[in-house]
């Protein structure tokens, strides 16, 4: 058998790896590149900008916006007429710093964060007790619960969208902003609960029962064991599930688009970005900068839990 020389084999293999990695991360490089380019360079395929342009980021993060929008003539006018009262100055300045057409990125970021964090937190609390119950205790009905949790995998969001919409319209929550926000929070809890129960249940089964037994012999109650033994022992898994839920809520668009439609100040990031793209502000550098800023927290979170997450992913604990 004639073998190709190892050097050329190695080179071909290396090329293959580069192609796979390149395919995976090219869109990310593309968005980073455009977010830093001046508009005149958008048409050129080079990925590295000739001159760096941070305007898009400054605008989204609201850095140094105040002075920029005031035309030179107005600034001169203000400087040359010292007899204007402070109040008059403020009114004139306000005209030029109106943020009406600027994309309120930080606002959307805050909304998304508040929703995702609360939903993930509440879900994880329910899931710890629920999962402990059906993975550790014997009681009639537990196998039905276990299987029911898996069954929920089959339901797409679209199947629940219309009935949930009618239900929340029925109790009048959709007409008022806090109600709409709260409905969405409840929906995110519902959407993340089954997968959390499933993932945590799988994890709790791997903790040896003898550890718990020892604590109970020492006189700890069952709740005490959960609090002092199970939670500390599975802390990494709990954090992983928390982040997983956080990511599901952070990415959600379907329900948000229906429930928050009329309340612009409550938009989550996906809603806001989509609206930005279809509005007159649709400028590639801002869109790309917003994309980068939306992806970054998730990627950082993921990197911090990578080992655990890949473990739980391969255990089958995922839902899309």
């Amino acid at each position: 058998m004639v073998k190709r020389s190892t050097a050329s084999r190695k080179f071909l293999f290396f090329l293959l790896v580069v192609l796979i990695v390149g395919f995976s991360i090219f869109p990310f490089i593309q968005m980073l590149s455009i977010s830093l380019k001046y508009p005149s360079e958008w048409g050129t395929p080079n990925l590295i900008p000739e001159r760096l342009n941070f305007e898009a980021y400054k605008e989204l993060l609201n850095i140094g916006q105040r002075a920029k929008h005031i035309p030179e003539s107005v600034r001169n006018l203000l400087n040359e007429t010292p007899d204007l009262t402070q109040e008059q100055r403020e009114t004139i300045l306000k005209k030029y710093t109106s943020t009406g057409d600027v994309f309120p990125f930080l606002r959307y970021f805050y909304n998304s964060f508040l929703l995702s964090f609360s939903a993930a937190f509440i879900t994880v609390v329910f899931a710890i007790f629920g999962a402990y119950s059906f993975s550790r205790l014997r009681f009639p009905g537990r196998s039905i619960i276990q299987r029911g949790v898996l069954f929920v995998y089959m339901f797409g969001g679209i199947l629940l969208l219309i009935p949930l919409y009618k239900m929340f319209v029925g109790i009048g929550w959709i007409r008022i902003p806090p109600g709409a926000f709260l409905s969405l929070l409840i929906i995110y809890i519902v959407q993340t609960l089954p997968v959390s129960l499933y993932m945590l249940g799988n994890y709790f089964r791997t903790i040896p029962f003898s550890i718990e037994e020892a604590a109970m012999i020492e006189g700890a109650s069952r709740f005490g064991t959960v609090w002092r033994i199970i939670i500390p022992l599975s802390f990494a898994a709990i954090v992983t599930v928390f982040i997983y839920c956080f990511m599901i809520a952070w990415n959600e668009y379907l329900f948000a688009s229906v429930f928050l439609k009329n309340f612009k100040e409550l938009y989550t990031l996906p809603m806001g970005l989509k609206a930005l793209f279809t509005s007159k502000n649709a400028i590639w550098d801002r869109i790309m900068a917003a994309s980068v800023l939306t992806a970054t927290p998730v990627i950082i979170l993921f990197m911090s839990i990578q080992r655990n997450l890949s473990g739980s992913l391969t255990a089958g604990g995922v839902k899309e």
Partner: protein
Amino acid sequence: MKLLQLNTAEGLDLRQREILLGWSMVIPSVLIILSLILYPIMYNIYLSFFDVQPLAANTYIGLENHKNVVLDPGFWNALVTTIIYVVFTTLGTTMMGLFVALVMNQEFPLRSLARSLILFPYIAPVISVVFSWQFIFDPVNGIFMDITYERLGLFASRFNLIGSPSTAVWVAVVFSIWKNFPFSYLMILSRLQAIDHNLYEAAEMDGASGWQKFRFITLPEVYFVMGAIILLRMIWNFNKFEEVFLLTENVRVLSVYTYFKAFVGTMELGQGASLAVIQFLLLLGFILFYIKRVLKW
């Protein structure tokens, strides 16, 4: 009163107390799932028989919604688009996952970095990557037209690939493969790592070629996990909304079609409910067929 309760709890034997504790810990989750997942599904079936107005009362109209849905050519178009989308994304994702897993299972420098980087598409929020993909296919600035039209001269003019439904569906397919192959890759890789190395050594002693080793050792070992991935992928992609809708509104798969019917324009909520039921029944039938015929469980 409190003392009495305590006494009754004391009176229970250990087994009964375990039952009580088990139910009390799981009951909040069960109530949430019952009232906000199972009840809405029943309610959805109920709504599909009514003329549903967003704010007014419902009126019973029997099978009118189902009839309107089935008689609408838009529904059949959406069904065909969905089947194309599901078949090609499922095959593409699984094949690519297998291929990448085989590559990443080899030893090479910087392997752990490469393994982290190829997970990016899967973990990044959909909304944060769709615009980059739209830019790549943008007729004026995008790199795709730059390469295929300017350099290779494959097309007569620049055009918007995402603009028309017939070409946009393929962009959506490629996008979905890009987004989801890391999941298949992870599952297959972890199975590959569990294969006993002695098997390969024994095969080499018997003079097996690389292809034979793959065909007779690797493939049988990953067969089951691939069957499971294909099933999950089909279920998920059949219901997929965000990955299609946010990339392009031109590709009307069933979920997107239902969304437009129910929440855009005249808000035909009753027809939307009927569509959701039909979509669910189609999926259910399909899963049963797949499990019986393909996985032979």
